[in-house]
């Protein structure tokens, strides 16, 4: 495991509010995820896992600590990157609780949107999108309207979108929540595939009992503190 | 994957957008200020112009009579009423003689008295003549005696003087007789006059006719000249027609006329212009012409309104255009001529015009020229035009 690439979090804290009403959502969180690794992040609601994702996603400013993504220090008691938007666009892939695809773009354009935002020409962006859709097994739905797609297809397309700019990091927030167990397991399989193929470090926030056994490493988070555990690492079909 | 005849959605919308823009452009160029002006055109042709003059008139009687007394008096009886036909000489009304009878009697008596005075004067003359004879013979006898010296000269002078006196009395009696004779003549004339006046209280119809007004009833007093009755000869009714001075060229006696009565608009009566009044009306700027009926229609009343159309001789083989194609620049009449693809205003001189709107072109155009008849708007030298069948929809 090369600690210089992937995700590294050291002593990350986040306090909301001030004085007596202050809430410490994160207390000295430490995490490591290697490139190509898929780790689970498990905890009860209110434990701070959403806050951790928001800090990693550079949409919420932590109070203190250090975050290194893909070898680049993005936060060290203050943002070290001037344009967080570009960071999110190029270096982080997001997979949400729901697919959150753009309804007025078709499947290909939803995925191609990210390279286009990064300035790639449209043809190249669409080519890459098609590649990813193929890899995820939804290429035949490339021109479909989002409303015509099933939940599983949409989820796969959102995964493709997260991968479109080949970010070193992917943050997945309850990606199997809307899916049944089979679909859920297949999503996890895909994530593992993509992670190893593109050497992406992936954090999966979940409380889905069906997929937790698949992780090799799990971080437990309680009251803002993380505890590393070994997972079952059950093999997937 | 795109199927060949199923265009992508953006293509449909682009087509729709283009279609909308085209519709927009079409609207902008066919209506509103950018559009060409719609006109209809016609060619100058040869044809007949039937000019006619039109005027409105009132039915009047050629001769109307006001029947009334020559002296003020009181009406005693009116024997006819409005609408009655009367014959010439028929007694229509009588005035109250009042004192006229007494005056006639008095005049007769005065005449009689004057006659008696004449007789008296004649008798006196006879008497004077006899005295003159006596005085004459006495004077001769005494003159003879005087010469013989039987009487004194003074006695002779006395008798001479008596003779002269008797001569003078003859003269006086003669002149008195003449004077009474003159007086008789005067009184007789007065008597004749009084009788004449007595006859004048009889109001008689001067000719055959119809009574049109009864203006005084028995018992009312009228002044001299005031009409008691009005009379017209119904066969002499004609139409007093007024024609605009500016549109009465060619008015002459003998023009055939069509008369339409206001009370009987469906029928047209034939007539002829019989007289043009020498005095026109300068206030209303009209000429006055009298149009007689060829055959008198039934039930026509005086002062009724009528329309009169006088037909003038037609102009054949004239260049004609509808008068709607005439335009005016100031006082100059002209038309919009289309030649060599350009529109320009050509002044023209017009001749006869028919009541149907056809006007003769005397100068300015030739047969076959294309001119504008109706237009949507005022035309100018550089107007763009579009020839259509009709500018205004005339639904029938």
């Amino acid at each position, binding site marked *: 495991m090369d600690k210089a690439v992937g995700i590294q979090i050291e002593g990350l804290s986040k306090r909301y509010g001030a004085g007596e009403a202050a809430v410490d959502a994160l207390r000295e969180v430490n995490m490591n995820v290697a490139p190509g690794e898929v780790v689970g992040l498990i905890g009860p609601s209110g434990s701070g896992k959403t806050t951790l994702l928001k800090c990693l996603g550079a949409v919420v400013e932590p109070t203190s600590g250090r975050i290194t993504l893909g070898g680049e220090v993005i936060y060290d008691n203050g943002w070290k990157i001037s344009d967080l938007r570009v960071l999110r666009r190029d270096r982080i892939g997001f997979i949400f609780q729901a697919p*959150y695809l753009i309804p007025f773009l078709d499947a290909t354009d939803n995925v191609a949107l990210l390279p286009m935002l990064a300035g790639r020409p449209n043809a190249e962006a669409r080519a890459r999108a098609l590649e990813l859709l193929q890899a995820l097994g939804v290429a035949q739905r490339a021109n479909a309207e989002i409303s015509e797609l099933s939940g599983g297809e949409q989820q796969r397309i959102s995964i493709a979108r997260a991968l479109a700019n080949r970010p070193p990091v992917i943050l997945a927030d309850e990606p199997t929540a809307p899916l049944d167990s089979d679909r859920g397991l297949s999503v996890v399989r895909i994530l593992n595939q993509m992670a190893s193929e593109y050497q992406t470090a992936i954090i999966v926030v979940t409380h889905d009992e069906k997929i937790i056994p698949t992780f090799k490493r799990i971080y437990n988070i309680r009251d803002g503190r993380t505890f590393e555990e070994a997972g079952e690492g059950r093999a997937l079909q | 994957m795109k199927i060949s005849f199923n265009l992508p959605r953006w293509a449909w919308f682009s087509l729709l957008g283009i279609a909308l823009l085209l519709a927009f452009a079409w609207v902008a160029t066919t209506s509103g200020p950018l559009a060409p002006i719609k006109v209809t055109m016609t060619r100058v042709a040869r044809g007949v112009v039937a000019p006619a003059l039109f005027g409105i008139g009132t039915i009047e009687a050629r001769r109307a009579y006001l029947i009334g007394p020559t002296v003020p008096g009181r009406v005693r009886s009116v024997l006819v009423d409005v609408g009655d036909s009367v014959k010439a000489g028929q007694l229509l009304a009588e005035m109250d003689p009042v004192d006229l009878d007494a005056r006639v009697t008095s005049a007769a008596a005065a005449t009689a008295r004057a006659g008696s005075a004449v007789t008296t004067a004649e008798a006196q003359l006879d008497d004077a003549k006899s005295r003159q004879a006596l005085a004459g013979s006495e004077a001769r006898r005494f003159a003879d005696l005087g010469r013989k010296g039987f009487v004194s000269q003074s006695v002779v002078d006395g008798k001479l003087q008596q003779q002269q006196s008797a001569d003078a009395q003859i003269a006086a009696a003669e002149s008195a007789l003449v004077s009474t004779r003159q007086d008789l003549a005067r009184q007789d004339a007065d008597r004749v006059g009084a009788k004449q006046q007595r006859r004048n209280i009889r109001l008689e119809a001067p000719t055959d006719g119809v009574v049109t007004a009864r203006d005084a009833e028995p018992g009312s007093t009228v002044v001299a000249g005031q009409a008691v009755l009005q009379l017209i000869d119904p066969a002499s009714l004609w139409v007093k027609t007024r024609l605009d001075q500016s549109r009465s060229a060619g008015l002459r006696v003998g023009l055939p006329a069509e008369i339409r009565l206001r009370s009987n608009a469906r029928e047209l009566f034939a007539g002829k212009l019989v007289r043009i009044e020498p005095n026109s009306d300068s206030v209303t700027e009209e000429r006055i012409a009298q149009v007689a009926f060829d055959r008198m229609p039934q039930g026509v009343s005086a002062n009724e309104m009528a329309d009169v159309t006088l037909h003038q001789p037609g102009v054949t083989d004239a260049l004609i255009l509808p008068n709607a194609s005439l335009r005016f620049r100031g006082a100059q009449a002209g038309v919009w001529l289309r030649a060599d693809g350009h529109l320009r205003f050509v002044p023209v001189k017009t001749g006869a015009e028919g009541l149907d709107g056809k006007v003769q072109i005397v100068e300015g155009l030739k047969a076959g020229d294309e001119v504008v008849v109706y237009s949507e708007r005022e035309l100018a030298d550089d107007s763009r035009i579009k020839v259509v069948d009709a500018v205004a929809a005339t639904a029938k």
Partner: protein
Amino acid sequence: MINLAGRDILHGWGKFVLTGLGLGLLIGVTFTMAGVYRGMVDDAKVLLNNSGADLWVVQKDTLGPYAESSSIPDDVYRDLLGLPGVAQAANVTYLNMQVRKGDTDVRATVVGFEPGQPGEPGYLAAGRRITRSHYEAVADVMTRFNVGDRIRIRRHDYTVVGLTRRMVSSGGDPMVFIPLKDAQEAQFLKDNDAIVNGRTRTAANPALNRPGVPGLLDAINVSQARNHNVNAVLVRVADGHSAEAVAQDIRHWKHLQAFTREQMDDILIAKMIGAHSEQIGIFLVILAIVSAAMVAFIIYTMTLGKIREIAVLKLIGTHNRTIAGLILQQALGLGLIGFVVGKLAATAWGPAFPKYVLLETGDAARGFVIVMVICAIASTLAIRAALKVDPATAIGG
């Protein structure tokens, strides 16, 4: 980069177009109101143009013959013809009244004119010019009369022999042209009851009804029934003379007023239409505000419906300005559809209005700019809302 605004519109095109239609109808009403005002001004201009006159000679101290009533003797024109610089002078009368055709009647301005003189309609749209001296009429198409119709004006029936277009009074009433003498009678001759009453009153007056003068009463009655007044004399000025100079000459007559073309323009447009223009101006401002509010509301609602997508877009790295551009372009697109629909609608329903509606291209261009500006401003509300969206809300749901 694809155009997000275009995609969004294409995706929900039905709603967008319907909204555009609604906005378009509102804009169409606005154009029509402006067109009504322009139509009124054009009516006035057309009225002045069609008369063929350079000067209007009216009763002194009046603003007639259109703005106020004016009455002058009908022989004044002869004196005017004698003035230097006067090429043509003709009597005209104007009277607003109901003209009957069968069972219906139409409000029209009856114009009395002399053929070949100023006051006669210059061009026809159908039929022919008047050839008889009485009882023929030429009517404007807006009266809905046809050639051949019999119409009744006061006591007489007239035959419509010709039709005109755009011959309207300053109030927008269509004109009906009849010979001057008929028009004088129509305007000044009283109805039968009044005439009979007048005759009775004259007969009761011993000064007028003298027994010793037969025929006096009749002569007085006839003279009272005659009328010799007109409303104005239209003067055409000879080439080489200035209209104002001739007008000054005429004004020196103590009992006449003369107006040039510019002065009549001012009277009609500034004075008669002035009040209308203020009303319409206020109405237009209100319509603009309503349109702006409508666009703002619609765009805001459309944006609110996309809050989640906007959060996601922001999270995955879309520029704020791209998102603002999305909203602005939608607002402008809405404005464009509204403008096109509005312009087409105003053109389509304009002729159905009883008065003339004139839609000028200048007004359309100005309208386009104003619509775009209003839409841009109206979109700022939604843009502010969109910019305030926190991308973090995409995470955690």
